């Protein structure tokens, strides 16, 4: 099943590139997403043994991330049917093909147990998404694509150097001489400590850039601001979660080598810095898509803090990566609908979205409440688990700052969101024919309902999955 879920999107992507007609090309996306979701369902029902000498294996941590992304991608694929039909003037060959290649590369990241293969797959996600940011073919989206490529390429090059360091840590006679996570973890204390430490620094910078942790987030507001909402959803809910997964695998090796104290401090520090920076830039943000980018910086920070705290916070971090993926889908898709309908994404021009878009407008508000940790939505519970992990281990400073930044972000983000949603839309720019339709409004609505349902009732199998992912990565 694993090779199938990797190859099907890739093959369909190739076919989409070759397909001559613009109008029905987006159907490939739907087929690829549905096949991928079906494959994931199959992997839930039946566990598969490691493949290719242990290079490919779906463990608990990978399963969390892949499940979230498969669901998100399916929602985005349905949305794309409506979205790309409305934008029939643009050639969508690269867009559809690139998204399918992205799905394939993400799946590979999820199942890769070899740090070299993991690196190759992460690099592929960058290459597959960069041209998509330039979908609108204007100067601003070009600038965003350029920054994204340059910053992420630098990050990825440093991550390769870090991967080489890790290989060298196990290169002494009798060492594992391998980059399989399992081999490195088994070798544990036999790894050369100075190299492990140096490797963690480079990999944290490299994959942290891809995640968009502050201060390595500079590509994020530009890319999310200019890319179509659909791509923003997949970048902030999918690609960044996989970068977090990559970092979690590296952390797993560091912990086995006995270097975890250092790694955990670094993660908590960068995580809190990201939350602080997001809070600062969120206040007075007039561009609501850029605001969502800072929200993504914040949530990557929360994930890093959760992993760095260790212990009971780690299952919360995995739960949060799922919640963040789904609720970012709601926010970006709703924001995309609002952007289309008003033809603008700054609060000076946009107000009364709830009146004009009876589904997307309220969804934008509900998504905001969910993502900032309002009960009964599921992010509240995952954020609570992480906060509890800080307070329960006596790290009151971390817990206090965590709460403070969350509160500041709630206020800053709320101001912008309310400006967009409330009020009378009379006198605002309008583009007739871009109202809510089934295809563009139902996907974020369904995602929102899932976020609500997970908050009201978390299935036992999912809770167990978060526990085993945390046990695998952090031994907790």
């Amino acid at each position, binding site marked *: 099943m694993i090779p199938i879920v990797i190859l099907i999107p890739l093959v369909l992507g190739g076919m989409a590139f070759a397909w001559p007609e613009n109008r029905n090309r987006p159907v490939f996306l739907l087929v690829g997403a549905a096949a991928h979701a079906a494959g994931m369902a199959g992997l839930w029902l039946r566990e598969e043994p490691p493949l290719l000498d242990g290079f490919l294996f779906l463990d608990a941590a990978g399963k969390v991330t892949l499940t979230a992304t498969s669901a998100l991608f399916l929602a985005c694929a349905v949305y794309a049917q409506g979205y790309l039909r409305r934008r029939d003037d643009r050639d969508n060959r690269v867009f559809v093909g690139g998204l399918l290649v992205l799905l394939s590369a993400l799946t590979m990241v999820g199942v890769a147990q070899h740090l070299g293969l993991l690196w190759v797959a992460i690099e592929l996600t960058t290459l597959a998404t960069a041209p998509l940011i330039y979908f609108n073919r204007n100067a601003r989206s070009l600038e965003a694509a*350029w920054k994204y*490529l340059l910053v992420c390429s630098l990050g990825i*090059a440093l991550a390769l150097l870090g991967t080489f360091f890790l290989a060298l840590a196990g290169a*002494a006679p009798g060492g594992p001489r391998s980059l399989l996570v399992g081999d490195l973890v088994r070798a544990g204390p036999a790894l050369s400590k100075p190299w492990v430490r140096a490797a963690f620094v480079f990999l944290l910078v490299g994959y942290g850039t891809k995640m968009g942790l502050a201060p390595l987030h500079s590509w994020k507001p530009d890319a999310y601001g200019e890319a179509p909402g659909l791509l923003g959803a997949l970048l902030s809910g999918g690609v960044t979660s996989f970068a977090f997964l990559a970092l979690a695998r590296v952390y797993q090796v560091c912990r086995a080598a006995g270097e975890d104290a250092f790694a955990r401090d670094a993660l908590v520090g960068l995580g809190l810095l990201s939350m602080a920076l997001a809070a600062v830039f969120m206040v007075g943000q007039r561009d609501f898509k850029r605001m969502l980018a800072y929200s993504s910086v914040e949530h990557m920070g929360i994930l890093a803090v959760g992993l760095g705290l260790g212990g009971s916070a780690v299952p919360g971090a995995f739960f949060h990566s799922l919640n963040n993926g789904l609720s970012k889908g709601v926010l970006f898709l709703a924001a995309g609908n609002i952007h289309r309908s008003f033809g603008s994404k700054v609060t000076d021009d946009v107000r009364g979205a709830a009146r004009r878009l009876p589904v997307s407008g309220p969804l934008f508000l509900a998504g905001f409440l969910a993502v900032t940790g309002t009960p009964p939505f599921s992010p509240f519970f995952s954020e609570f688990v992480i906060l509890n992990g800080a307070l329960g281990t006596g790290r009151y400073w971390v817990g206090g700052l965590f709460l403070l930044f969350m509160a500041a972000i709630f206020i800053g983000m709320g101001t912008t969101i309310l400006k967009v949603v409330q009020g009378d839309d009379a006198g605002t720019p309008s583009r007739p024919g871009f109202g809510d339709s089934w295809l563009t409004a139902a996907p974020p609505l369904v995602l929102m309902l899932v976020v609500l349902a997970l908050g009201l009732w978390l299935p036992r199998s999912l809770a167990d999955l978060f526990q085993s992912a945390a046990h695998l990565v952090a031994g907790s």
Partner: protein
Amino acid sequence: MAAWIDMVFILVVVIDLFTLASSRLNAAIRAVALQGALLSVLPLLLASWEHEIGHVLLLSLGALAIKAIFIPWLMFRAIREAAIRREVEPIIGFVPSMILGGVGVALAFAFSRGLPLPSPERHAFLVPTALATVWTGLLLVVSRKKAVNQVLGFLMLENGVFVFGLLLAEFMPVMVEAGVLLDLFAAVFVMGIVMFHINREFSSLDTEKLTALKD
């Protein structure tokens, strides 16, 4: 043999510093191409009998074709189409960036002393050369405004990573080759797509003009 290897490493570092100091894009591209050519000799010089000869040749020829010939050729084409010759006002001046580069080289030597190597006698200069080249690449990316120079910086960074990868060529050659291959991908994307589009859209390759997006 050992003397030759040391010589190559020293030349690589000299090229690092030269590129930092040169304002003419032609000269900088040529320097990076020369550096690529020097790197392609290293797999041959460093190979021991345990190596599989196929991998050594692949790595060497691959580096030569991509780093020394193909990418520099693309870059020359790009600057010809955009009709640019010089980096006029870098963000960090040429002399200060030379000094920073020199400091980087010194730090690279100091830092690599703390890192134990599996066979230190064969690779005395390898780690410092790799780190110094990575540092120079980063410095070029952040200190220059022309897109061409930023791409050159990225290539130099990849060169540094490649030098480091040679330490691993013995036991995981495929990994090192994958690194070279993706360097090609990145370069084609950066240059083929973005650079030509930037030129058309802004009628210049100055990334300074890319300032519409900020907070």
